[in-house]
């Protein structure tokens, strides 16, 4: 017999995920210099597995603070961008900040808007979707950690934050379904009423 998890168990699992993620320290220490770390990270790309088919990462670029990766919508083959939403190809910048600390560096991550996106709107978007914020931070952290520790990018290290992002988006998805349903129902009523009016 299929063993389905009851609601309380699923809630507990979600809570455990949250706790695990909360326990993750945003700052990571590496025994290297900022210049050496920057040199290793520049030119790397975050694997497409982190974004799915909808987006991809441009190669890491050096900045005064560290390294940044532009996230672009559309496939990684240089074809069409997202003209529908009028946001251009670049939708987000993932940043790794490198600060000398003791015998090495402290690495922190951040998300920033591309130049054509209003920073207030960008911040508001992630304030409304904290699960997504956590997921992108986790992705850039995993990218930096895998490069600086000479190992392959591991999907397993980002899957928990991805699952949490999906879980946290469920109410929004449900709300979207409900709103679409209401629009369709109104369309149904309008169509029917119009047909009766026309038949008079």
């Amino acid at each position, binding site marked *: 017999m299929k063993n389905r998890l009851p609601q309380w168990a699923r809630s507990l699992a979600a809570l455990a995920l949250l706790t695990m993620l909360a326990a993750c320290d945003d700052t990571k220490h590496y025994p290297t210099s900022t210049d050496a770390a920057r040199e290793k990270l520049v030119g790397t790309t975050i694997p497409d597995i982190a974004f799915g088919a909808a987006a991809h990462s441009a190669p890491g670029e050096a900045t005064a603070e560290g390294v940044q990766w532009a996230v672009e919508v559309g496939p990684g083959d240089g074809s069409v961008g997202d003209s529908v939403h009028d946001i251009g190809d670049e939708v987000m910048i993932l940043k790794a900040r490198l600060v000398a600390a003791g015998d090495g560096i402290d690495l922190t991550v951040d998300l920033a808007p591309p130049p054509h996106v209003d920073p207030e709107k960008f911040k508001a978007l992630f304030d409304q979707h904290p699960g997504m914020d956590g997921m992108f931070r986790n992705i850039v952290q995993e990218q930096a950690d895998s490069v600086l520790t000479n190992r392959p990018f591991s999907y397993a290290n980002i899957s928990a934050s991805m699952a949490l992002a999906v879980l946290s988006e469920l109410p929004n998805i449900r709300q979207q379904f409900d709103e679409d349903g209401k629009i369709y129902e109104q369309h149904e009523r309008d169509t*029917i009423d119009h*047909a*009766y009016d026309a038949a008079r």
Partner: protein
Amino acid sequence: MRTWLRAGLVIAFLGLAGCSKGADELYYDVTPDDAFARLLKADITGFRDARQCGMLIYFEPKEYDATRTIAWEVTSGDRTVARFGFDVIPKGNGSVIEMQIPKAPDGKEIYDGTQKYSHPAFLQPLRPALRELVDAAMEQRPYDWHRLPDMGVDYTICASMRQNFIASGQPYSIDDPSGMTHEQAEAARSQYGTLPVERDDVFAPVGL
């Protein structure tokens, strides 16, 4: 199995059996006169919009104040495609609403979920959809199909003709051959003249 568990199960089954009859009874804590007045204002348009198929249907109410009865004759074109009504029966301090749904030729109710129609008026089954009509009237709110019990996906001709209607804005007619959209029927008529049209025996013969 332990004795206490058996006893518990027996009590639970007895409890369920005791509930089943009452669950079908439409009792409302509303005086009969109020209940009747609320039924007269029932959201029949909301019910129609939620449950009709692809052809236009019209509801003609008939009210009988003496017996607190209201019945609707449902027509399309010049044909009666359905009929139903409600009687308000005083009970205690409230009212029981008794549903009147005519018999189909096979002895069951019309639109009971097993009937086949070439030109259906409603999604089936009708009875739970009418219960919501009564509930909505008694609660003095619009008809809300979301409150209907889950009746599964409807794959009948009614559902497909309703979808065609909503998509095209063009209802079909009771004088169009079954399964054809009105546009297709008009095109066929212009090419072949009069078309054979199926007719439904909706009701059981009088006296049965």
